[in-house]
């Protein structure tokens, strides 16, 4: 996720202080992990340098310097371009789980048990997300659903693999 584009997008509705930007970011997109103020500061410096934002004013006083940033025309264009460009789908070709299953089969450990344990773990996570979804607002629900669908995809893969373990074992040991 591009923090730069996100911050630019947040500025489009109006100029903000750096601290406000962090709060808005955390609230809407931060979820479990809040962004460090340092990261905001360094990103804004880069955007300033590239002419995508400008300093709208400085509030002097005690404590840290408080700049107010505003988006430039170039910045607005940049956000538009970013939104219009599709994200590259993740091919998911590198999978730790697959590696683990093959290794279990190669070393004569129980791949079934591995898969069962993993499913339990996935479901545990899904339950947590489902619970959070039930109590959260629409933003929570959407973000949790995104995760749940991915986890469900993993689980389906687990089911399918479990059903085809015998054939995999033959090929691996061949």
């Amino acid at each position, binding site marked *: 996720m591009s923090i730069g584009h996100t911050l630019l997008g947040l500025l489009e509705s109006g100029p903000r202080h750096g601290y406000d930007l962090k709060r808005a970011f955390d609230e809407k997109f931060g979820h479990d992990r809040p962004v460090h103020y340092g990261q905001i500061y360094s990103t804004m410096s880069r955007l300033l340098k590239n002419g995508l934002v400008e300093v709208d004013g400085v509030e002097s006083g005690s404590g840290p310097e408080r700049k107010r940033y505003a988006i430039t025309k170039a910045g607005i264009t940049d956000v538009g371009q970013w939104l219009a460009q599709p994200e590259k789908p993740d091919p998911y070709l590198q999978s730790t789980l697959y590696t683990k299953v093959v290794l279990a089969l190669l070393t004569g450990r129980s791949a*079934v048990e591995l898969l*069962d344990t993993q*499913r*339990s773990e*996935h*479901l545990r996570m*899904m*339950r947590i*997300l*489902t619970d959070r979804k*039930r109590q959260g607002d629409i933003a929570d629900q959407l973000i949790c659903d995104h995760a*749940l*669908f991915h*986890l*469900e995809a993993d*689980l*389906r893969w687990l*089911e399918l693999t*479990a*059903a085809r373990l015998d054939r995999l074992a033959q090929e691996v040991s061949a």
Partner: protein
Amino acid sequence: MSTQDTTLTGSLLSAHELRKSFGPTPALDGASFSIRPGEVVAIMGPSGSGKSTLLHCLAGIVPPDSGTITYSGRHLTALSDAERSALRRNDFGFVFQFGQLVPELSCVENVALPLRLAGIKRKDAHRAAQKWLERLEVSDVGHKRPGEVSGGQGQRVAVARALVGSPRVVFADEPTGALDSYNGERVMQLLTDAARESQAAVVLVTHEARVAAYSDREIVVRDGQVRDAAVAV
């Protein structure tokens, strides 16, 4: 609530080493199961693994070939057909995937049906049914026939019917199987919320992980056997 079994193991409904064959093919091959009051347990597994048969056995619809089922201290396997019917009427609720509403009865009459079967007066039964339709956000379909409502509404009516008799166990066999994911999840949410609120246990058969995620715990049936460490509980 009866004492011995529940206090001993904390379980409301439990099954031990169930076996059941239809013809030469075994559907259940030594399956065990246990559920506590108010608990939501998902039975998962691939198609044909025997999960529906397990549900039918647990609910006393199909008698197992061997094994024991204990509900609230009573051996289900020892009960007569009439006694099991009475148990299903009074203590259990059911939701199926489709085709469970009586097409010629209106939705509110469908919901009231279990109460009326239990001998409750029509007026009272309808009042309770209407209350449940409201809880499941389908109060406006009460007078319509099942053929005139959408799949999601119909399934909510079915859930209302399963819960109207304040059952201690709700058996749900792929309750969202015929619904899209949005409607499916909404039904699951209403079902589990309502069940939790009324302290009803839910036995949920599903092959969808996102539906199973509404449970407290899952077990997996494969080839008629339960593959889950949690069974040891």
